[in-house]
């Protein structure tokens, strides 16, 4: 009997030895002993967790500090115009008389404010329908390959530096306007056309995202009810993505409002109330870029420019607020 047992043991051992995959010994799979002391102390993973939390928190603190100090700095200098130089804030917002070197009664930004808004609104108004059409073609009609191609084209357009757009505008658009309408060719029209090209890709790519976010099931359901592609687009897709498309347009407007260099190159830089689309004028941003080298820190002309900067900052806050507002409405 014992011989047989031995035999069996031998057979098993030999089989185990011949196995290519090592035999798992079950007693190694017992639960590891629990160390109560260790449980109450943070483990290595928990330490890593602390580190990760700490690092991201630090980054956030840094960014918040940066934002607060930018707002503080711009605010301090921008408000100095009103508090230490005694410029009337109502006068600043309603007068078109801009010549800060002549004293506090010549600090009126209305012409620039109006021009900035006109340029922004007109360029967004022209760009939005084009952008929506292009985005619709890319998402609803074209094949995947041509959509990819169009997407890389729009990305390229976004990536071109603004000075290049300004240069192109200066050499092509301004002379063309001069030949067609007379005058110098500089003005709101030229700025609008340049901004149109610059804003178009921004609105397009955001609108593409908006349209892609519409579930395919809605398209299928509409088609299954006997709708044509166009009916589906018009009645379902555009309706489902309205708030996101509006957001896209506002982002485009924010870009147009903030664009300085390209606008400065084609708008003419005369701080005058624009009386038509081809008269030279200036926007808030173009005035900042063209004049910031000509003033001395701490003087009224310099502070007046800071006030323009503050106005721009407030406007971008307003754009952000609008985006949030529309986003909230869209969710309802």
């Amino acid at each position, binding site marked *: 009997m014992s011989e047989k047992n031995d035999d069996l043991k031998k057979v098993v051992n030999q089989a185990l030895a011949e196995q290519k995959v090592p035999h798992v010994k079950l007693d190694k799979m017992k639960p590891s002993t629990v160390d109560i002391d260790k449980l109450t102390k943070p483990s290595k993973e928990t330490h890593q967790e602390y580190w990760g939390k700490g690092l991201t928190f630090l980054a956030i603190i840094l960014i918040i500090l940066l934002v607060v100090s930018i707002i503080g700095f711009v605010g301090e200098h921008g408000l100095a115009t009103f508090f230490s130089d005694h410029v009337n804030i109502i006068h600043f917002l309603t007068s078109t008389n801009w010549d800060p070197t002549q004293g506090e009664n010549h600090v009126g930004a209305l012409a620039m404010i109006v021009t900035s808004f006109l340029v922004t609104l007109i360029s967004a108004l022209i760009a939005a329908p084009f952008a929506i059409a292009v985005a619709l073609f890319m998402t609803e009609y074209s094949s*995947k390959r041509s959509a990819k191609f169009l997407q890389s084209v729009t990305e390229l357009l976004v990536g071109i530096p603004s000075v290049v757009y300004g240069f192109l505008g200066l050499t092509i658009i301004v002379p063309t306007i001069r030949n067609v309408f007379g005058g110098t060719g500089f003005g709101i029209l030229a700025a609008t056309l340049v901004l149109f090209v610059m804003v178009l890709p921004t609105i397009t790519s955001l609108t593409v995202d908006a349209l892609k976010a519409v*579930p395919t*099931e*809605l398209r*299928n*359901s*509409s*088609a*299954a*009810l*006997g*709708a*044509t592609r166009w*009916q589906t687009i018009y*009645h*379902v897709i555009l*309706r*489902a993505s309205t708030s996101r498309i509006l957001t896209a347009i506002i982002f485009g407007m924010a870009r147009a409002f903030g664009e300085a260099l390209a606008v400065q190159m084609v708008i003419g830089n005369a701080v005058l109330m624009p009386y038509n689309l081809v008269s030279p004028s200036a926007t808030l941003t173009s005035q900042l870029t063209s004049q910031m080298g000509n003033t001395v820190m701490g003087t009224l002309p310099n502070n007046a420019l800071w006030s323009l900067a503050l106005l721009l900052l407030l406007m971008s806050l307003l754009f952000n607020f609008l985006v949030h507002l529309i986003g909230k409405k869209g969710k309802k």
Partner: protein
Amino acid sequence: MKEIMTAKNVKLSYGNFEALHGIDLDFPEKRLTALIGPSGCGKSTFLRCLNRMNDDITGVKISGDIRFNGKDIYSPKMDLVALRKHVGMVFQQPTPFPFSVYDNVAYGLRIAGVKDKKLIEQRVEESLKQAAIWDETKDNLKRNAQAFSGGQQQRICIARTLAIRPEVVLLDEPTSALDPISSMEIEKTLMSLKHKYTFIMVTHNLQQASRVADQVAFLMNGNLIETGPTEKMFISPKNKVTSNYLNGRFG
């Protein structure tokens, strides 16, 4: 009994992969046919052939002969938009459009060019009643359809499909995303409607098929294994595989 839709030797392939290997199946008018079978057997794919929803898939090839009222739906002359007005479809997930219940149900009529407000109003009410969702929606027809529960949304979608008075309604697992109570509501709806419309339903739920279907077709691996009246299929199927599947002895 009249056959409203007939399919002969329907084959479908994506690229090199053949998903349907020649399916012959007829659908009697004003009856409910259930397509059953394991996941990936091609029943949804086959269903989507019947109103040409597969056309948009890149690299898809469909051959065979599918006739609706005797007309070849894959003939180049067939108007896709017109076909889908006669052969409607309800999807697995409820897909209400992001506007009011009323506009959802009226959608199909409006895009078909119906301008008569009275007619639309009448149809909307009728369809919501038919889909057994009228009592829950009659007081808030202006409410966004996406604000309703999943089961209610699905019945709104059924009402939306019925509003254009299709002859055939294709249902692609219409209750699989719903809880049992909502599913029961939908089943009741189908039971009450199946003598007015022709339904073709894909379902994973065998009890559901046995409860509502008049005819059952069992598909596996892209082949039609067996088809017949529901009772016969469940009590005495001819094929061993069918019997195993229906009794849960599968694989």
